[in-house]
């Protein structure tokens, strides 16, 4: 069964906070839920499906449904790290297409900046089976992604300057976002001259650490038709997992190869039809590999593709992350998938900042990589259309 066109994204909300002193995670979930429902023109009683991931406190969906007062008849707490919320969009569309719910609420909140949580790590009650064989070597989000960049440079000749262009593009967009943590436009030289944090990644190759959250409301076509909101239809979705494969390791590509292929097949459109992309930018290398894996250029050509401003709105062929992304704007809960969908919907509605709004933006893609790119991760792709 194809879900193409069987649900709409009717509500979006990005929490303005970047430093939530004195505000617990559950309250941020509630504030973003309220914001997205208000944006859609819906209320608490309309929600019959609820989606959250590992950032939600306690038993996730149960604790949050209680706190929010939800009467959900469909619940999904799929956890693939920062890409979870794109997976949730996909699953919400499936659930709506199957008649299991009509109004799906997806929430994210996190406080890695003020809450003391370790960046990129959800609390784990039970150690994963790999821990005894990997944890002694101190793998971190940083050095695992860095090893992807190292190998990419070795195999394809990708340069630090090419990676830097990704940060330059993000910062060029962030200057227009009053909520962005980093609004200074940076140069390639500033990126490559910033300190190496984990070879070959520099400090400015890394995203920010911020508090915050976001929410989405996905609805059935019947409900979308009754709402006085721009119609953003989900055209195609895909998700995939990639891991260590028993030691048959190849970190030059991600599961995005498979998730994007499926999404484009379902959407029935071509790569060149996409007017705007939101790409998870935990690090510059994440963006570069996703661009290749989605198929915007051939494997190994990503460095040349992103150089010289090709990702900058109004200048390049593929404008990306016009809110400044995780590299400059925010990275709530160390989980970037939610804000990727939100900015893509803004672009399709024509509600992005005028300085970065893509003209005639009728087709957009949001894509995320959750977990650790170099060891085990979940990729998710959603293609959306303004109708």
């Amino acid at each position, binding site marked *: 069964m194809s879900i193409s066109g069987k649900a709409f994204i009717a509500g979006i909300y990005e929490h303005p906070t970047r430093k939530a002193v004195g505000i617990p995670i559950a309250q941020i979930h509630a504030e973003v839920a309220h914001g997205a429902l208000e944006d859609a023109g819906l209320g608490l009683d309309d929600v019959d499906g609820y989606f959250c991931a590992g950032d939600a406190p306690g038993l996730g969906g149960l604790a949050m449904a209680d706190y929010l007062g939800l009467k959900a008849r469909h619940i999904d707490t799929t956890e693939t790290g920062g890409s979870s919320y794109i997976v949730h969009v996909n699953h919400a569309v499936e659930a709506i297409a199957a008649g299991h719910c009509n109004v799906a609420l997806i929430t994210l909140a996190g406080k890695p900046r003020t809450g003391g949580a370790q960046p990129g790590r959800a609390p784990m009650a039970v150690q994963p089976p790999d821990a005894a064989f990997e944890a002694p070597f101190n793998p971190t989000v940083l050095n695992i992604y860095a090893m992807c960049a190292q190998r990419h440079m070795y195999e394809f000749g990708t340069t630090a300057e090419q990676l830097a262009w990704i940060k330059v593009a993000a910062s060029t967009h962030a200057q227009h976002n009053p909520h962005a943590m980093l609004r200074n436009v940076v140069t390639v030289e500033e990126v490559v001259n910033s300190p190496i944090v*984990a070879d070959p990644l520099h400090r400015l190759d890394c995203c920010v650490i911020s508090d915050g959250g976001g929410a989405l409301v996905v609805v059935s076509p019947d409900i979308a038709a009754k709402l006085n909101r721009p119609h953003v239809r989900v055209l195609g979705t895909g998700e995939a997992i990639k891991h260590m494969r028993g*030691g048959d390791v190849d970190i030059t590509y991600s599961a995005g190869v498979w998730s994007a292929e499926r999404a484009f097949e379902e959407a029935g459109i071509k790569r060149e039809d996409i007017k705007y992309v939101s790409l998870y930018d935990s690090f510059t290398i994440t963006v570069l590999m996703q661009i290749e894996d989605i198929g915007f250029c051939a494997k190994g050509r990503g460095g040349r593709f992103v150089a010289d401003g090709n990702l900058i709105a109004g200048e390049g062929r593929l404008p990306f992350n016009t809110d400044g992304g995780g590299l400059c704007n925010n990275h709530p809960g160390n989980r970037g998938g939610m804000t990727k969908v939100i900015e893509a919907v803004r672009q399709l509605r024509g509600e992005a900042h005028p300085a970065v709004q893509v003209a005639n933006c009728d087709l957009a893609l949001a894509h995320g990589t959750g977990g650790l790119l170099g060891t085990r991760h979940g990729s998710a792709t959603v293609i959306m259309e303004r109708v």
Partner: protein
Amino acid sequence: MADSNGKPAVDDIALEPYWHAAAQGRLLLKQCGACDKIYYYPRPLCPFCMSDDTNWVEASGDGTIYSWSVQRRADPPYAIAFVTLNEGPTLLSAIVDCDFDALAIDQPVTLSFEEREGRPAPVFRPA
């Protein structure tokens, strides 16, 4: 943790041979009797075909760096790497006793063991 007889509790019986060998400075991999694949990290069921006919094989200890990174801002800085063993599997490990600035992909490395987190951990040094 200890059982009622005061003996140390075994937390994973299937991996006892692995830890026993590691304590002797030997790295064991798993090989599947059904599909012949050699894999790491070890577990009883083959991750390629799910056969439970899997056997221990000892690694030569020789390999090459597949990728690496130095966590420069850690105190002290340390090198992490994916090392491809001559037997085939690539594993996550550390490169020790090395010049960080001389690390390179394809560089030959050789196995040794270090006590980490109370257990013998397979690390590598330049060959």
